């Protein structure tokens, strides 16, 4: 359910003029909720930034999530992380 919460909070932030980007481990849930911008990562629940103790991978995932801010839209923007 935390993926639905991400989408609904992101929607309210966007509505108030704050751009959002997000991470998802449950692509199909994020598709249903229509989260404004989301990076789909191939990791299990509990592991949104990939691996514990791997700051290089974590930073790569964050960069990919922020890169979605450059996507022209229209929303929802849902992109797979391929940089692992």
């Amino acid at each position: 359910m935390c993926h639905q919460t991400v989408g609904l909070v992101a929607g309210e932030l966007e509505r108030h003029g704050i751009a959002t980007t997000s991470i998802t481990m449950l692509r199909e849930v994020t598709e249903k909720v229509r989260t404004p911008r989301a990076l789909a990562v191939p990791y299990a629940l509990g592991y949104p930034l990939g691996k514990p103790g791997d700051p290089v991978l974590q930073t790569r995932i964050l960069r990919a999530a922020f890169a979605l801010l450059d996507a022209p839209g229209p929303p929802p923007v849902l992109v797979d992380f391929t940089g692992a």
Partner: protein
Amino acid sequence: MATYKYRALDPVPFTRLAKPLRNARVALVSTGGIHLASQAPFDIESKGGDTSFREIPADAAPAALGIAHKSDAFDQSGFRADRNLGFPLERLREMAASGEIGSLNRRALSFMGSITAPGRLVRETAPASAALFAADGVDVALLVPL
């Protein structure tokens, strides 16, 4: 959750970032039920889910972050080994220090994820979080589930 009907955004609100990321103020939002040990934990027994949120200072020590999450569907051991796995304050501080992002907002927000009845979330607490971030001058929010 196969029969649960997810609430969908329609239309999808969309704000474009009007400045380069290197000049933008970024705020972290978690939906992993993360809270400081000193804060009241989320109510994991609440019917429909606890829609409140906690403010977490951006300079919080990783070890100070606890977790209260209703879902037993995921493995919490990774997060316990490295809080950045689900709440990447240290990574974001590094990106601010290197100039990749303009700044990290002074407070992050944490929601609980297990909200099956999101009416109050959408009506009250999510707009309240947006008002806090607007007052802080936040340009971008990064949302991370757990």
